[in-house]
């Protein structure tokens, strides 16, 4: 280990910081400075167990999804060990609870990397959590699987965002629902990065398909009373309401619009799939809500997978097995395949193996890593809840490739190092 505290400076390219700031929308000087640090964390440790680091929200505001993701991690590790581990070595799950707190994410990410010396980190639910630890990941040149739906755009050598992004969810989705219901769209979205960016994506594809966004409202995260919003929507009388609300406070919207008697088809990228609102709210609050997901418990039978039963074999009390539960499971398995392919857990080698294109048969069908962007090519299912909150599968989009980052933003990680989050 490095003992002088400064570490041996890596062969950091002599890029002027000014240049970097100009080219990078987000990360700016921080990364320029940080990239000079190398604490030799990346040294191979080809002995002992393979340590899978897990960091998520087992308690706190986001625990509805956090406990699902933790169960998926437990299951994946258990199954890997039953199959003889990774590279013949035992797989060990080193899990920490970030308690839905960004500071805890930073502390625990450092602990897992520097003290527990994990081989890979599977972490985070919110984008804020991800951004909080990304400087630490980059600084330590770790491998970070962000197995979660998000607003898209992260192009970072050390990050593998395996969940759904707007390429998956919005691009095929908007034309499908607009064909069904009409071209006039109203959007309500949580007033932060995820909501604003996803709303921008929706707008782009509504307009690209000849529709019109007749209203857009951004709602602070701590608002839980929607009566003015409900009236505004009714005044505008849209054909489709895009709902990009997030968190427990905002989820009160459904019951409120239901009791106000508002009936309009809704579309979303997050609801039901993550925090099973259709199970938690009495019908018909979410009836006619359309969503695109990579997996949902109700789809298991049609997909012919026993994934929900297997998850419950390690977490019997789990209330729901949703899209992020499946993504977490797939993410950990894809890492395992990467390490097997590399023949080592040495990080650069594993990253290169992952970038060579790894495919895994997950609960939601085949998932493979897109080398250029580290995102995944995966099947997407468009479903909706009926008036009894039963989930109905409407359409399957197979092997959707997220290519906006590579095609429009020039993200090509194997050949062009980057650590930026791009925006549409």
């Amino acid at each position, binding site marked *: *280990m*490095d003992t*002088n*505290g*400064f*570490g041996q400076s890596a062969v950091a390219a002599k890029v002027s*910081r*000014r240049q970097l*700031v100009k080219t990078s*929308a*987000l*990360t*700016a*000087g*921080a*990364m*320029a*400075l*940080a990239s*000079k*640090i190398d*604490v030799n964390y990346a040294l191979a440790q080809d002995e002992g167990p393979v340590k899978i680091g897990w960091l998520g929200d*087992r*308690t706190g505001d986001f625990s509805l999804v956090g406990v699902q993701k933790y169960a998926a991690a437990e299951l994946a590790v258990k199954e890997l060990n039953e199959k003889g581990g990774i590279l013949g070595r035992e797989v060990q799950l080193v899990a*920490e*609870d970030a*308690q839905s*707190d*960004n*500071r*805890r994410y*930073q*502390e*625990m990410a*450092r*602990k897992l*990397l*520097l*003290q527990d010396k994990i081989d890979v980190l599977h972490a985070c639910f919110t*984008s*804020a959590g*991800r*951004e*909080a630890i990304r*400087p*630490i990941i980059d*600084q330590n040149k770790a491998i970070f699987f962000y197995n979660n739906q998000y607003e898209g755009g992260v192009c970072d050598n050390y990050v593998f965002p395996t969940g759904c992004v707007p390429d998956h969810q919005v691009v095929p989705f908007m034309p499908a629902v607009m064909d069904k219901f009409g071209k006039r769209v109203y959007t309500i979205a949580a*007033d*932060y*990065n995820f909501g*604003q*960016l996803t709303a921008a994506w929706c707008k782009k594809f509504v307009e690209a398909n000849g529709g019109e966004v007749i209203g857009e409202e*951004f709602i*602070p*995260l*701590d608002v839980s009373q929607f009566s003015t919003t409900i009236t505004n929507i009714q005044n505008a009388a849209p054909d489709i309401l895009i709902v990009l609300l997030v968190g427990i406070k905002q989820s009160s919207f459904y019951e409120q619009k239901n009791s106000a008697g508002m009936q309009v088809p809704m579309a979303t990228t997050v609801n039901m799939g993550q925090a099973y609102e259709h199970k938690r709210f009495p019908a018909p609050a979410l009836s006619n809500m359309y969503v695109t997901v990579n997996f949902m418990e109700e789809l298991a039978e049609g997909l012919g997978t026993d994934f929900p039963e297997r998850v419950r074999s390690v977490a019997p009390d789990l209330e729901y097995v949703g899209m992020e539960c499946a993504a977490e499971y797939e993410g950990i398995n894809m890492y395992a395949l990467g390490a097997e392919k590399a023949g080592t857990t040495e990080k650069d080698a594993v990253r290169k193996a992952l970038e060579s294109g790894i495919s895994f048969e997950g609960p939601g069908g085949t998932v493979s890593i897109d080398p250029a962007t580290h995102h995944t090519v995966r099947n997407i299912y468009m479903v909706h809840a009926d008036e009894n909150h039963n989930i109905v599968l409407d359409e399957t989009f197979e092997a959707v490739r997220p290519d906006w980052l590579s095609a429009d933003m020039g993200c090509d990680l194997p050949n062009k190092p980057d650590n930026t989050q791009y*925006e549409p």
Partner: protein
Amino acid sequence: MPRRTSWLSAENIAFVIFLIFMIVYPFRTDDFGILNAAYFAALTLLALSLSMIWGKAGILSFGQTAFFGIGGYLYGIYTLNVLGSAQTWVGLAVGMLAGGIVAAILGWFMFYGGVNDVFVGLTTLALTLVLQTFMAQTAGPEWTVGEARLNGYNGMYIPQLSFGEMPLYGRPLYFVYLAILIGVYLLLRWLSSTRWGYGLLALQENRPRTESFGYNVRLMQVQVFALAGVVAALSGVLYASWGGYIDPSSMGLTAAITPVIYVAIGGRRSLTASMISSMILLKLSQLLASSAPEYALVIFGLLALLAVLFVPEGFVVALFNLIDRHLLNRGGGNLPGMTAPVEEVTANG
């Protein structure tokens, strides 16, 4: 009034032991331990700031995290725009100054407006929430200051404090942080021992009477509020530099209340107790989060409750007093907060 006959008190001994421990610790731990301790040092400045404003001047503020956030953000905005390692230190000064100015304005607004006691707590809480709500929605590209994207709820990337081309890292980072913490601690202790400091203690007991002694009470309240704002902002700068990141949740409700609990448990009237207890409790809360995540917050809540109920002067201060009385034979103890306040006695029927 503190007796100043001898420096040999439990409080001073505890400080020396604490200092020795903090100097030796980084040579006895791994990389994570070093960085983690530096992080604790950064957050402990927030506890010192609160101990100064609440313990010494009797003003309970939930706004220290707002100044913390202002410090962190302003540091980030400055250093992203004005590059160069020397500039990171100017950025540190900019962050501190910004926290101090906002605190001074708010303090003037409150204290010259006759806002006192519990309403100060509520006003500062409202400020904290306004800032958090505002920062959370600054996600769009229109919220850019020069080169710095505020980036809303997801938080902002921030350059690290550096010497030359080298960002502070590992042990050097730790010792810089420790030196700042100890420096601020000594400065605040010295200030508390001046006439001005005694004036603060007096105004905490009785504002009108302090005024009649010739102190300008309102001005002093604004001064100490601004000073605590500077310290809180410094804490925010060091935190932001440590993680290369700051986000609006640093200004949330939980963030605002946590240091209050740390200081209450340790003993708000003693800077030493606040500093030591903040360090210990940060570690404890981290350990609990690792070992018993579901029960961590319950246990922590219970600890805080027990402290408030049964050791109202604070666990650490109680310990100091015990040692002073039984081992050092310092009669009444030299820490304020030992003698029960009068209203407690009258309240017992």
